[in-house]
């Protein structure tokens, strides 16, 4: 992220069980509404959050998501940071390809979420966990 990005407000949600995904969707939606995202953009960021929250739980053995309302110059956005302490991802490029799945899913989680947001970053170390950061600007 460029210099001058300011965090206006933040909140942390746990991601341990399937119900936490529903909760995360609701909270992300309400933040997106407060930020005056268009309906399509609200739906995109909520859907991306849903995919990434599920990854955190299903593949990362649970973790948390941090929501940040950020501002940079005269624009505002919503930043979501998903962190887990799971097994990590050995091949990050492969994991972001459509159709790649380590389980029975459709394999759209990472690649699909990336298309729904404006900025996407992923770091992972085998044995230590994974961190996915996304930003959508209003």
């Amino acid at each position, binding site marked *: 992220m460029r210099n001058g990005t300011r965090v206006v407000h933040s909140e942390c949600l746990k991601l341990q069980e*399937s*119900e936490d995904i*529903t909760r995360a969707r609701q909270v992300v939606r309400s933040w997106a509404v407060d930020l005056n995202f268009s309906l399509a953009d609200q739906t995109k960021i909520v859907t991306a959050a849903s995919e990434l929250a599920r990854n955190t739980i299903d593949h990362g053995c649970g973790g948390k998501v941090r929501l940040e309302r950020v501002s940079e110059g005269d624009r505002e956005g919503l930043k979501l940071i998903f962190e887990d302490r799971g097994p990590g991802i050995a091949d990050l490029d492969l994991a972001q390809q459509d159709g790649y799945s380590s389980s029975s899913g*459709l394999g759209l989680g990472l690649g699909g979420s990336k298309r729904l947001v404006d900025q996407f970053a992923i770091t992972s170390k085998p044995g230590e966990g994974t961190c996915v950061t996304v930003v959508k600007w209003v």
Partner: protein
Amino acid sequence: MDRIPILKFGDLLLVSIQVDMHDRLAMNLLDDLTHRVVDDRAGGVLIDISSLETVDSFIGRMLGNIASTTRALGAETVVVGMRPAVAITVVELGLTFEGINTALNVDKGVEMLRSFNSGA
């Protein structure tokens, strides 16, 4: 609430998903619908998702599983009422809805199911 009501309308089964789907709810719906198709000798299933604000890959997969399962039993499923913002999002996400019949609204969905059953 752990179960979504299933209504019988003629030989069709109607489901309106009006709550945010969590995993157990989705699994129960697949299970309940499969049994009801057999028990009620249903000719088709109509699922209204007009209240759903989000469709992610999990819900997409669940709808696909319902469609394949009821089709295996001889009843087609039609998903109706997807919101425009949801349609834009699922396409960008990469969901193709392959193998899932879709229609604009309940009327068109019922029409579609009737046409399947009349062999048209």
